[in-house]
């Protein structure tokens, strides 16, 4: 079945199965289309041992791989199924991958592979691939090709030095979103603490229950035991269950009271005002008189207007821009009916009650974009009022806000 497989597919599989270093040495051993290359017998293929020889009807002696020295000649008349162009394409793609691997020294193999794939894009265009490879060889890190590779791999969502973080709801998500504030981190840690005791109790109670059902089956054991007293076990089963909630309560109360403490003056006050069915954010620290402060509305982006890569029901047109690693005070209030301002990554869910200003103190610990949704039924479009918080570096915060300030005040005034 494999007798007529083209040589190209043999190399493809091997390059998929091997790391970049293996690929490089493999290419040294088996360069591109030779006109008189003998097919490989199955037992000489190192990484895919199950592949049989390409053409079983050609008898060949097998010299040592390092002695191969072939050139690209054109159509291989002895093996008409082979295509020198395809060979060359794969060779170029593999060389690009190797070169990127040399240049990207601090990235994992997987990242290098993804970046290389993004860069050459599985293209069939030999001049394009040769140009990319030339650029990488000549210009290295400074060149266009390297920059493109990084750019593309970033845009594809591959964070170079860390795993992708979960800051929005994922389909079939089971755990929490990744924490971006100390409060959320505390909540996650408390969850882990309690979960341990939870599993302990679950396993213990289930075992007792199953054991009782099993051993006291009416057919196997028609006369149940008639023990009615047991002082030791009664004492133990009273003491232990009262100790376990103490272990749960200690971290729980610690977190609860630490959430209420306001030890540091906030640097910024942002008002999140809920409307039916959008949000308004006010940054009022900067206005010098009673005229309108930096205020903008935040509407959800409807499904038809979403761009590739955006999340459905989670994206808004104007995000709340906050500086990272800064203490913020968010004042949540509605303009009409009760809403709730919730951002799971920041560990925040604050009800917006008409006529009342609710304050939450948060400090976003890392830059990023965090998504949340309205959490109190507020009418027909309650599901379509998301919240997006974008944390930017503190030094960029000023320019971001003033960029929004200028068009806003000319619009509002």
């Amino acid at each position, binding site marked *: 079945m494999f007798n007529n497989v083209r040589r190209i597919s043999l190399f493809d599989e091997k390059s998929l199965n091997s790391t970049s270093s293996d690929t490089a040495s493999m290419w040294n051993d088996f360069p591109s289309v030779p006109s008189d290359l003998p097919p490989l017998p199955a037992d000489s293929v190192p990484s895919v041992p199950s592949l049989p020889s390409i053409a079983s009807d050609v008898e060949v002696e097998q010299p040592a791989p390092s002695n191969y020295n072939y050139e690209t000649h054109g159509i291989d008349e002895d093996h008409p199924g082979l295509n020198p162009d395809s060979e060359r394409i794969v060779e170029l793609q593999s060389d690009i991958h190797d070169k990127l691997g040399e240049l990207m020294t601090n990235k994992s193999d997987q990242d290098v592979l993804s970046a290389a794939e993004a860069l050459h894009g599985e293209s069939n265009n030999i001049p394009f691939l040769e140009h990319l490879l030339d650029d990488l060889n000549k210009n290295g890190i400074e060149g266009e090709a390297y920059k493109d590779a990084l750019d593309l791999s970033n845009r594809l969502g591959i964070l170079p030095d860390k795993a992708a973080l979960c800051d929005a709801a994922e389909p079939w998500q089971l755990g929490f979103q990744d924490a971006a504030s100390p409060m959320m981190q505390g909540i996650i840690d408390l969850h882990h603490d309690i979960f341990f005791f939870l599993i302990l109790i679950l396993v213990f109670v289930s075992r007792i229950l199953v054991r009782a059902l099993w051993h006291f089956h009416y057919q196997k054991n028609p006369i149940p035991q008639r023990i009615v007293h047991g002082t030791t076990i009664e004492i133990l089963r009273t003491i232990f269950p009262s100790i376990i909630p103490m272990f749960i309560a200690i971290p729980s109360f610690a977190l609860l009271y630490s959430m*209420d403490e*306001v030890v*540091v*003056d*906030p*640097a*910024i*006050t942002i*008002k999140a*005002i809920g409307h039916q069915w959008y949000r308004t954010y*006010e940054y*009022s*620290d*900067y*206005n010098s008189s*009673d005229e*309108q*402060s930096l*205020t903008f509305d935040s509407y959800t982006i409807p499904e038809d207007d979403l761009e590739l890569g955006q999340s459905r029901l989670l994206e808004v047109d104007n995000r709340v821009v906050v*500086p990272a690693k*800064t203490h913020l*005070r968010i*004042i949540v*209030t509605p*303009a009409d009916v009760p809403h709730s301002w919730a951002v799971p990554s920041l560990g925040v869910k*604050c009800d917006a009650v008409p*006529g*009342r*200003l*609710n*304050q*939450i*103190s948060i400090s976003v610990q890392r830059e990023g974009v965090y998504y949340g949704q309205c959490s109190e039924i507020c009418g027909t479009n309650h599901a379509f009022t998301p919240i997006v918080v974008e944390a930017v570096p*503190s*030094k960029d*915060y*000023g*320019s971001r*806000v*003033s960029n929004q300030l200028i068009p806003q005040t000319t619009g509002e005034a």
Partner: protein
Amino acid sequence: MAEIELKTAPADFRFPTTNQTRHCFTRYVEFHRCLAAKGDGSAECERFAKYYRSLCPGEWPLHEPGLCIHASEV
């Protein structure tokens, strides 16, 4: 682009809880008391003005004519 100095109404120990409605109201009243005491346009009162503007939503009708007079008499 000059750095915007990040400053806002400080955390007031008189209002330690989540409900800050009274905080907004108190700052507003303090501002108008300050104006009544020191005269309109005084610079010291600007501080209170910034505080209440930071805390109170812009949509709240705090600038109704007549409201200021009542606030300063509270």
